[in-house]
């Protein structure tokens, strides 16, 4: 009996992963929570033979993983940080793939009247004026950076915000969970919101301001910096991402009849 147990343990220990061309891609939580990855990855595997391993993190961490050479490419949405990444020699180039938009989420009763606002800045002003609870990502992700930029554009200083402004330091889904739990406002990308399962008491209150535009870009890690990265695979994936097939899949991806992403790569 003992031998049986031991051999079972060793056979588990020595299980070998299946051999395929692996490519590690760091993506943002907002991209992954949208569910688009589940549509794209099987097609990528079929067309290019690439087994794309997704590391789902915030944009801040994704860029850090790229700088450390722990991934082969990144797909993120924070233009300034992306340009700094390329300028620092960590990425070969930046290629825009698609966009979606940010929306303001809040309690259905909408105590701050965000639903009546004309612009993103006006929505934020009314949240601040009412001292309504607001949950921020607080994790240096692309969404967090965008949110801070919007507060600044609206003319507010984040440092002076009181208790009503709560930075949870978590991914998009966890932040929406927190907003649902507290009855608070939050900013989310549209895809994560539509795919979110725990909408209880929350509603989409404001969207459509051109300022809320959210561009995703693909950045392969520079092989001159990290010789071990799978540059060839990263190149193959980039070619696939800008292909007509990818365009059809991205534009055709819908939840509840709503299109989530718009393909805008230049070939």
């Amino acid at each position, binding site marked *: 009996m003992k031998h049986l147990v031991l051999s079972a343990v060793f056979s588990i220990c020595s299980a070998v992963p299946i051999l395929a061309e692996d490519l590690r891609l760091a993506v943002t939580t907002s991209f992954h929570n949208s569910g688009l990855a589940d549509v794209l990855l099987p097609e990528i595997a079929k067309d290019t033979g690439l087994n794309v391993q997704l590391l789902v993190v915030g944009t801040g961490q994704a860029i850090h993983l790229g*700088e450390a050479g722990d991934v082969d490419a990144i797909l993120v949405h924070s233009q300034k940080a992306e340009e700094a990444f390329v300028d620092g020699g960590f990425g070969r180039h930046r290629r825009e793939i698609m966009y979606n938009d940010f929306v303001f989420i809040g309690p259905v009763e909408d105590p701050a009247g965000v639903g009546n606002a004309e612009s993103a800045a006006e929505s934020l002003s009314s949240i601040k004026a009412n001292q309504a609870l607001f949950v921020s990502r607080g994790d240096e992700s692309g969404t967090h950076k965008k949110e801070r930029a919007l507060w600044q554009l609206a003319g507010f200083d984040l440092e002076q915000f009181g208790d009503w402004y709560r930075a949870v330091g978590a991914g998009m889904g966890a932040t929406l969970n927190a907003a649902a739990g507290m009855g608070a406002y939050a900013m989310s990308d549209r895809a994560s919101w539509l795919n979110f399962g725990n909408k209880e008491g929350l509603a989409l209150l404001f969207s459509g301001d051109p300022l809320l535009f959210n561009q995703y870009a693909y950045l392969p890690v520079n092989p001159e910096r990290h010789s071990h990265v799978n540059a060839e695979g990263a190149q193959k994936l980039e070619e696939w991402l800008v292909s007509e097939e990818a365009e059809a899949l991205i534009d055709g991806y819908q939840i509840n009849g709503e299109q989530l992403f718009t393909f805008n790569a230049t070939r």
Partner: protein
Amino acid sequence: MGEILEGLKAAFLLLVTLDSDLVEITLRSLQVTLSALVISSLIALPFGAWLAIRRFRHRRLAIAVLNALMGIPPVVVGLFVYLLLSRSGPFGVLGLLYTPSAMIIAQVIIITPLIASIAHQSLRELWAEYHDLLISLNTTRHQRIKTLVWDGRRALLTASLAGFGRAIGEVGAIMIVGGNIDHATRVLTTAIALETSKGDFSLALGLGFVLIGLAISVNVAIHWLTRTEREGRW
């Protein structure tokens, strides 16, 4: 309340349909944790016995440090192992980051002090009993450790199972060093964290029930195999 029932339903459905993803991540959870447990036990059990019989200058300090390390925060271990295994870190050339091996390394670091500490506590009492006998038989230190480990095997099993319990439910460290990659490093706990973040509480809870069931089955299986707690076999 409704969500807990939904969770039970989800767990039941996952189990009866033998969902292929569930089987895969459950086996990976077992693979990672059992490997870590075997390695940790091989280090920690003899070390605990050694610590029980050996007298040296800073013994009390060593034991105090070991006991303190029982509560080492997994997320700190994860960060530490990440920095060591990152491509920019000292062991980056091995390419171990984001593989089950990295998760095993992190778990070994987390549970070895726990197993060693519990092993030491129980063997210390056994050593008090055996001390005179083993000294008078003029045994070597190696023989004493062997005798203690063998005769104290029931208590050591408890030590190992405590280590198993800590490792199988751990999420902070393996999330950082494993990355929760689908079909590569996703295990039960990281899958639960992911489903919770998606707001899919029933699936998360279902996976949680599977995890609890797994922990119970492994404990029962080990007790059954080693025939503890049976009449006349103490």
